């Protein structure tokens, strides 16, 4: 068999195993080791299992993942999400669709301390959904807002997906995080504009809440000091060059813990629950990371990334044509795969293409996160939608997908904006301390 054929067989086997519901990481690792063995002898292939995984799990850079997860867990447990929503609501609740706008604002604020989309969506399913229903917001709209707001979790720093992208492509995680700030704010504004537009276009569809007094507003603002402090501390420290990304994650987790304890919001059992949650997600992420690295050795000796680069740059589509092709591929993959698994599986192959086309690697990180974000909310597999469904049991999946549709359109618009104006992502990181 030619190496090309071996590579294609490898990919086919991988997708077959994944379809049969073999865990993504296990399938990648298995195909990687067997493929490497076929080309290169099985003894060396098995030895990969002795070298690569232990090196991966003891790499200090990878510690950002559990640490940022832990920061989000502590922040969520100590009630920061509720306070953010309350504060946003006192300022925005009286507008048409105001609760929805407040939800987006609060999701954005929460995303600034939580690196996970799904956690953001899950949190606001419990915090914002009951409120919206109380004011007779339609089910589909309410869940759609939360699903879209949840995606801010991986756009606004910190972000587990951006961190993994940085680890795979050896880009500075700090710079990637800083690059996400402006696109994240653009996302917040566009979501808010979408809600306002829906309110105007469909009279009577979105009610307005009561107007809060300035006293209430100030009182609510006082409550959000904790989030503000934590975000300023972590992202400010990163931007100002005080910490490395791993240290920022450690400081964030430690800081969130201290705030939770000082405000007496963290019981002993909460403490362990937060740690356990983070350990579980970490284990799931590292299983695919380990598998992907093993699969990567197979790709390396079959020279697949070089072949794909030659193939795509040889199409004559030009850089932007190839980029659009790649993004379309991600949208299709997003129909079947988890965002993290998608990034880990594809970036090693796609990144060399992006470099060969001369695109900025930091900017592409932002673009790819926005693309997989879409995958989190578009049917038939949308992780945020499933998570909301698991919290809000009495709503149909199809209703949520219908409700999220306007935001899918918004996301595509935002993607186009970022492609047209890359400086939105690249300006801040090039001016870092």
């Amino acid at each position, binding site marked *: 068999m030619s190496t090309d054929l071996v590579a294609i067989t490898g990919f086919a086997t991988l997708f077959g195993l*994944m*379809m*049969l*519901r*073999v*865990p*993504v*990481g*296990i*399938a990648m*690792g*298995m195909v990687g*080791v067997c493929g490497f063995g076929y080309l290169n002898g099985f003894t060396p292939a*098995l*030895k990969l*299992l*002795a070298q690569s*995984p*232990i090196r991966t*799990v*003891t*790499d*200090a850079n*990878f*510690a950002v993942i*559990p*640490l940022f997860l832990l920061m989000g867990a502590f922040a969520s447990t100590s009630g920061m999400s509720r306070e953010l929503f309350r504060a946003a609501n006192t300022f925005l609740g009286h507008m048409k669709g105001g609760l929805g706008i407040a939800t987006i604002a609060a999701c954005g604020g929460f995303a600034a301390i939580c690196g996970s989309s*799904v956690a953001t969506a899950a949190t606001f399913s419990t915090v914002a959904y009951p409120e919206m229903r109380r004011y007779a917001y339609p089910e589909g709209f309410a869940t759609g807002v939360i699903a879209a707001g949840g995606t801010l979790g991986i756009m606004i720093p910190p972000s*587990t*997906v951006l961190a993994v992208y940085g680890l795979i492509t050896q880009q500075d995680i700090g710079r990637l995080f800083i690059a996400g700030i402006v696109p994240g704010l653009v996302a917040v504004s566009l979501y808010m504009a979408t809600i306002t537009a829906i309110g105007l276009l469909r009279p009577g569809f979105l009610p307005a809440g009561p107007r809060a007094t300035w006293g209430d507003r100030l009182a609510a603002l006082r409550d959000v000091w904790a989030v503000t402090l934590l975000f300023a501390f972590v992202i400010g420290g990163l931007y100002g060059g005080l*910490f490395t990304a791993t*240290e920022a994650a*450690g*400081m964030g*987790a*430690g800081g969130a813990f201290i705030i939770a304890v000082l405000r007496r919001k963290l019981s002993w059992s909460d403490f*362990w629950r937060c*740690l*356990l949650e983070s*350990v*579980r*997600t*970490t*284990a*799931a*992420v*590292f*299983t*695919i990371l380990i598998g992907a690295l093993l699969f990567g050795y197979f790709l390396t000796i079959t020279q697949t990334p070089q072949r794909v680069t030659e193939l795509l740059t040889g199409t004559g589509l030009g850089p932007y044509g190839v980029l659009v092709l790649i993004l379309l591929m991600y949208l299709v993959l997003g129909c079947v795969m*988890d*965002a*993290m*698994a998608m990034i880990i599986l594809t970036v090693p192959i796609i990144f060399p293409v992006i470099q060969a086309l001369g695109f900025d690697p930091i900017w592409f990180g932002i673009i790819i996160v926005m693309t997989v974000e879409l995958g*989190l909310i578009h049917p*038939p*597999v949308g*992780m945020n939608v*499933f*998570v909301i469904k*698991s919290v809000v049991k009495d709503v149909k999946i199809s209703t949520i997908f219908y409700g999220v549709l306007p935001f899918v359109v918004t996301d595509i618009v935002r993607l186009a904006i970022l492609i047209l104006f890359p400086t939105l992502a690249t300006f801040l990181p090039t001016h870092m301390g």
Partner: protein
Amino acid sequence: MESSVIDRVIHGIELTAAGFLAAVTALMFVSVFLRYLFAWSIPDSYDLSCLMLGILIFWGMAGAGYRGEHITVDLLWSVCAPRVQEAMDLFAALVTLVAMAAFAWMMGNKVLGTLRDNVLTYDTQMPVWVFYAVAWVGLAASVLLLVVRAVRLVLRSDAFARLSHHLTTAE
């Protein structure tokens, strides 16, 4: 194979992993403060946090494998009949078991090799193999728990089937 016994074992494993995560966080947090306040760094704090990270991940993987919490592609599975789903779950569990067994075996060799090769940390010259060995225990537990999981899937314990259908994700 009492369910409660296994549950306690797995809970113990996960709590230990959680404890290591707490330790890594504390070490990282304290190191940064010491650096800025006293311009001092704890000897081997870097190696120590890396090695503990490895332990917590391998131990955490034991829980993920047992509960079926790994990230999967559910598209085909979700449209299949329950009988087919059960068959797919069993197949996936067996593949995972084979993979993890090979991994645990090779990692066991790595532990022995690290012991033989006298690999030490930079500052305090601690032997690295000890940490690897502790991490390996997580993999060994993983394999044993996957055997339990496979047997249970064959016996079609209903409660267990429900448990393994939990939604898990990572992003």
